[in-house]
């Protein structure tokens, strides 16, 4: 009994620190942008530890078709260092908030040559074991419609229309049955669906009787 307890506690102690030592980084998967526009590439992380003062963010860029990546941004010791020699000089700006675990950057005035993969790597000492996350940037002249948007909207529209027709049908049936919806009968006796309608009833008057003297 005691040995089982000891074994269990050892296993738990072995698992928990391992879990708390992995940092998980989130960026987008793909970003589409128009030529000449600005884009914000977001990067945030999840870590079991408190955000330390030595948190670092670093972005690197690998152009499409190239094999190597170059580093374009680094945040460390509380100060951001942007690219001042590479392809993004004067076009990169740090818009993140490291205190809130946000290490996003802003790229200005995009060009076709900016197509490529951006990788964000964040470290939160002592939480340093983690996998960097990449986001792919695609620069278009005209942003195409995302896959599945038209599909989804056509299917949604048709099913929505169907639902609407069914709802209206049952609503009409319900209202007519409840006699709320009264297709009123006019005085000329035109046939309608309502029950009594709003017929005006004249008070019954006996037919006029003319007194004729009895001729004998």
């Amino acid at each position: 009994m005691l040995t089982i307890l000891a074994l269990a506690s050892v296993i738990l102690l072995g698992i928990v620190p391992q879990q708390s030592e992995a940092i998980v980084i989130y960026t987008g998967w793909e970003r589409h942008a128009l030529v000449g526009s600005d884009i914000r590439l977001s990067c945030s992380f999840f870590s079991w530890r408190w955000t330390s003062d030595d948190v670092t963010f670093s972005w690197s860029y690998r152009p499409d078709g190239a094999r190597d990546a170059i580093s374009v941004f680094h945040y460390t010791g509380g100060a951001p260092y942007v690219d001042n020699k590479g392809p993004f000089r004067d076009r990169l700006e740090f818009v993140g908030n490291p205190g809130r675990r946000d290490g996003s950057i802003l790229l200005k005035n995009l060009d076709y040559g900016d197509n490529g993969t951006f990788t964000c790597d964040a470290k939160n000492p002592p939480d340093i074991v983690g996998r960097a996350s990449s986001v792919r940037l695609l620069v278009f002249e005209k942003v195409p419609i995302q896959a599945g948007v038209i599909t989804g909207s056509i299917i949604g529209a048709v099913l929505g229309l169907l639902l609407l027709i069914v709802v209206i049908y049952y609503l009409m049936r319900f209202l007519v049955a409840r006699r709320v919806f009264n297709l009123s009968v006019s005085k000329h006796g035109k046939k309608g669906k309502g029950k009594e309608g709003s017929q005006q009833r004249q008070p019954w008057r006996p037919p006029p009787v003319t007194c004729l003297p009895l001729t004998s």
Partner: protein
Amino acid sequence: MLLILLAVLILHLIILVLLFVSTIANAWTVGGTKNTDLWYSCLTTKGGYHCSSASNEDWIQAVQALMVLSVLFCLFSLVFFMCQLFTLVKGGRFFFTAVFQILASLFVMCGAIIYTVMRPDGEEDAAFGFAYILAWVSFPLCLVSGLIYIVLRKRE
């Protein structure tokens, strides 16, 4: 009477299966090492089977939507057929079922036509695959089935 009912039901199920297979199978256009369909375009090279999502173009999304809708409507008409079989008055006709079935056939027709017209040309030895043929086959079957439902009367 029971025989007719069974035959109609089996026809409906066959149509449903055809539509399903046609929508899902990856063989609308085949040619050599490449086969494409509504959802993926796959290339079988020496290394293996490389697939990428079908293009983002508008027309292929419309075809996707129409094929999915036709499967859904066929399914709905089957459900309504089952319902109406038990709730319809004697001598009544299966109008509800027929409407959905005919709509399903129209959607398949529209989808197949759009695909035929807008298919990217210029591929050497690119022939139409079996899924495309199934779509065209299921269109008249579906239409005939819908018309049968209009004519069919419920007898006790």
